[in-house]
């Protein structure tokens, strides 16, 4: 699969995710309307609300992510080294230079966000800048640059936004239902709603998990590793950076949450062992990534 196929597949995936969530949100709106005795009105209101919210979140989402992780825009004067690295790799990838952000934290991590190469940013922690040498930093930045070039960032951001809306709506339905709003006529209809809500939520939870996995799949990380290595022509740089990152005892727990976790180069949570965590892990095991890079 070359880069053009990857970009096309990502654009296709974007549409797939978008239509999936529009249907899902419409259904949730219908259920919500049913509770309030206004099924079609609910459907329309929810769809409009969701679209409005999605447009705003999508266009502002990268800023929100940057704000919640505490990233500050880096100046060339303070971080000339980071600037040169990002500029160089943007040249290598043939895309405009993304903005540079820095998180003041001793943990070793990095992520890219945005909607398209012209509107993207790369964030690294100050710990990363301090502990990695030039080749290693180039490897990490190249990995993030590939996420930008492949439009991975768009799929990731959109998924995060839409999952957020769905959770919000399901939560609203549950609350409305529990507090019995409009529940004067607790008749057969309400029983039906109970079943519908139960079903929707039962289907929803694993599906959302599945979708997040689809969007951030391990293959995507491997691909970004490979594309990054192609940019620097030096896989060992990223391999040794990942090694340092995996040995880092201090993940970025306080600055990351579940919504932003999949953006980072390595999972920002403390390492847990077990089949379940492996199944729902947003990132492939680092040792596997290092092995693949070293075999290139």
């Amino acid at each position: 699969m070359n880069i053009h196929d990857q970009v096309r597949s990502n654009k296709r995936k974007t549409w797939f995710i978008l239509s999936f969530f529009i249907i899902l949100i419409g259904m949730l709106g219908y259920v919500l309307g049913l509770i309030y005795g206004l099924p079609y009105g609910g459907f329309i209101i929810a769809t409009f609300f969701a679209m409005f919210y999605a447009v705003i979140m999508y266009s502002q989402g990268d800023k929100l992510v940057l704000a919640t992780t505490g990233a500050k825009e880096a100046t060339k004067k303070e971080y000339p080294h980071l600037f040169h690295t990002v500029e160089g790799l943007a040249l290598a990838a043939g895309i405009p230079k993304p903005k540079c952000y820095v998180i003041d934290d001793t943990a070793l991590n990095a992520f890219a966000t945005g909607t398209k190469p012209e509107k993207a940013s790369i964030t690294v922690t100050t710990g990363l800048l301090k502990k990695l040498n030039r080749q290693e930093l180039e490897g990490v930045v190249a990995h993030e640059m590939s996420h930008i070039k492949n439009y991975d960032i768009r799929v990731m951001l959109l998924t995060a936004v839409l999952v957020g809306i769905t959770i919000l709506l399901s939560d609203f339905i549950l609350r409305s239902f529990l507090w019995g709003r409009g529940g004067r006529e607790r008749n057969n209809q309400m029983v039906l709603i109970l079943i519908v809500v139960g079903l929707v939520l039962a289907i929803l939870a694993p599906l959302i998990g599945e979708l997040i996995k689809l969007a951030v799949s391990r293959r995507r990380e491997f691909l970004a590793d490979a594309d990054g290595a192609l940019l620097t022509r030096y896989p060992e740089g990223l391999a040794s950076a990942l090694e340092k990152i995996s040995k880092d005892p201090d993940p970025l727990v306080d600055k990351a949450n579940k919504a932003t976790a999949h953006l980072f180069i390595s999972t920002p949570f403390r390492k847990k062992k077990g089949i379940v965590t492996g199944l729902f892990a947003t990132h492939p095991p680092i040792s596997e990534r290092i092995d693949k890079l070293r075999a290139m």
Partner: protein
Amino acid sequence: MLWWIWVLIILAVVVLGIIILYNSLIRLKNQVENSWAQIDVQLKRRFDLIPNLIETVKGYAKHEKELLTDITKARTAFMKAESVGDKAKAENMLEGTLKSLFAVSENYPQLKANENFLQLQEELSGTENKIAYARQHYNDMVMEFNTKIQAFPNNVFANMLGFKDKEMFETTEEEKKNVKVKF
């Protein structure tokens, strides 16, 4: 009756194919030119940094006059170069002389402690890197372009439409040798 319909269809397909080929070649050609412009920007940047560097070094390293003249010479040669090949040659010469300059700067502790020199050094090595990356991207684009116009049956039409192979930005044999510079 039927045969000329077939002829028309085949003709239409061929014409459509040529149009698609032409458009994709134009796109690639523009990408090649744009990536060349990116190298040019970085080369120009380094070009502008050199007088500053020479000014700074002059005061400290009086014994390196010859080296400084070499750098100036390489810079002038680069200014005069027109074709991709000439530019590549001049650029490689310039890179070599700059490397030697940073190598001998080791012998001048005062120079190495100079704030201005350190800044110039970071700036120049950053630019150096960017040139390498821009060059890599340019060569990738050239390869893609050349492969496209050399492959059959594109080569027949590409020739007719006036597309010619682009020149790669090569490094010299000398540059491929590992240079050991300790800072």
